[in-house]
């Protein structure tokens, strides 16, 4: 925010700027839907006074594929191939939540081994998602090289996913009843090799990014989320934790095997883009630690799948549930309603970006510099596909 003479900036009435575009003092431009500074396909309608944002409106709909409608026309089992496509960087959370909802409504218990494998895939997906974010965050402030490193290391993780499930991006590995296959032999050793590579990368990134004067100067004080904004804007995940709130569903409402793992909720108090980056960076180390804990404590043998009824005629008892899990971006939720037939009555997906990329971004962008808008957006780790589904 320009701290000099603000007489030429729009007057603020009832918390909103009064903008007369005909006065020719303001410029309205579009950032996106195809722009390196936006995350995915999303458009920001930006009104500028000089180089300062005075108004912003988020437009979504460029990636709407109607998943919720598609799910209503498919059997319960057919749905699991669709839900992973809701989120590109971290599809496994969707797979897990869909499976967890179906299992809860139908009263199926998953074997212990499957729970461990599910937790492993969720943590691997979290790490892969954070690697993608880290590259985006650095690139948004002009350090494209970091993005090349991190995306290359994400590829090593995708190799592991490919070996595990056959798919690199969409794994379709977690199915209602368990997981599709057991861990391949020697996967733990190969995963450990990848983790060691990522640890070396994180040390480099720490030196290059977090000790970089430009990154510090531009990200400190950018997009401050105050404590009272957290609930009123639906702020969750690392953004809420960077605002000092110890909220993590893995601890607050332990699912899968998280209560058997040792970890603490990482919080901070700065609540700006730099603090959020620090929180996520620490969570990446936490992910690596959790993956190692899972690999060392996982049972060697046991079933990875509970037989479910004939999937072609599988009727789920009528009922409704809301299942949640902590994704890398925050709390992810599936509201599932069954009317007792072989098809879902309604499945509603609630991703963290739904509130972060619209209500919160529209609020935080005001008075930021246009050049910092990309960095701000990435610091909220927004993912448009989960907004519009």
């Amino acid at each position: 925010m320009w701290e000099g003479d603000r007489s030429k900036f729009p007057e603020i009435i009832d918390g909103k700027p009064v903008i007369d575009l005909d006065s020719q003092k303001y410029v309205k431009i579009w950032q996106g839907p195809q722009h390196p500074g936006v995350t995915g396909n999303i458009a920001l309608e930006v009104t500028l006074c000089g180089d300062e944002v005075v108004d912003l409106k988020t437009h979504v709909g460029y990636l709407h594929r109607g998943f919720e409608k598609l799910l209503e026309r498919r059997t319960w089992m057919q749905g699991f191939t669709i839900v992973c496509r809701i989120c590109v960087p971290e599809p496994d959370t969707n797979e897990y939540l869909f499976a967890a909802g179906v299992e809860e409504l139908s009263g199926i218990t998953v074997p212990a081994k499957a729970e461990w494998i599910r937790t492993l895939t969720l943590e691997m997906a979290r790490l892969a998602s954070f690697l993608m974010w880290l590259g985006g965050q650095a690139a948004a402030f002009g350090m494209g090289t970091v993005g090349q490193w991190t995306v290359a290391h994400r590829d090593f993780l995708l190799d592991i996913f490919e070996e595990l499930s056959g798919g690199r991006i969409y794994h379709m590995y977690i199915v209602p009843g368990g997981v599709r296959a057991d861990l391949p032999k020697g996967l733990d050793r190969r995963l450990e090799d990848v983790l060691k590579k990522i640890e070396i990368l994180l040390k480099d990134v720490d030196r290059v990014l977090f000790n970089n004067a430009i990154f510090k100067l531009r990200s400190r004080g950018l997009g401050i989320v105050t404590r009272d904004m957290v609930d009123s804007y639906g702020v969750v995940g690392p953004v809420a934790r960077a605002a000092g709130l110890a909220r993590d569903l893995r601890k607050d409402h332990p699912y899968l095997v998280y209560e058997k793992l040792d970890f603490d909720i990482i919080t901070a108090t700065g609540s700006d883009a730099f603090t959020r980056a620090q929180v996520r960076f620490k969570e990446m180390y936490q992910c690596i630690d959790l993956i190692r804990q899972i690999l060392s404590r996982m049972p060697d043998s046991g079933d990875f799948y509970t037989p479910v009824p004939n999937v072609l005629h599988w009727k789920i008892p009528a009922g409704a549930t809301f299942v949640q899990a902590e994704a890398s971006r925050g709390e992810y939720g599936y509201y599932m309603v069954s009317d007792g037939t072989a098809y879902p009555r309604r499945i509603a997906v609630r991703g963290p970006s739904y509130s972060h990329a619209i209500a919160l971004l529209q609020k935080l962008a005001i008075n930021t510099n246009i050049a910092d808008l990309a960095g701000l957006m990435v610091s909220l780790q927004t993912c448009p596909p989960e907004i519009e589904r």
Partner: protein
Amino acid sequence: MEKIISRLQLSFALQDIREQRPDLWFLSIAKNNAVSILTSLRDIHGFTSLILLTAVDYLENNVFQLTYILRNYSMNVSLGIEVKLPREAAVMDSIHHLWQHAETFQRELKEMFGIDFPGSPGIDEGFVLEGWDNIPPLRRDFDTRKYARETFFPRPGRTKHDPRDQMRSKLYSDYSGGEK
């Protein structure tokens, strides 16, 4: 949670109270009392976060069911408030004054189900669809296949290579198709 429910029952006529999980409860309430109970839950009972606002279409009963899911972080409990609306008069009071991000949910519901929330900011601006000229697409009576056939007609001059016809004509021309 039972204490909160019994305290709410003193002020509101709650129906269909059910415990889905120890950390997830659902209850139904009449449309007129919905905003009051949401305000009370937010300000008095610690359900400070609106997690989800969505709708379910019960076409056979001619009603929409709105579901508000709120979360109490200090107790780690979620509560789903269900409100029934008649499909012909699908209008509900807005809650954008309680949560800033509620307007996004309401905009989506207006577009996808045709449920109106008068007074909600930008309610008529649309959410993801552009130039939509049919009934709201998430309603149960919207037929996706019929819409696709009517809207995305086959391009003139397009040749079709159906694998089944191709195999029949090229590879198995003597195959009778299973008929004797």
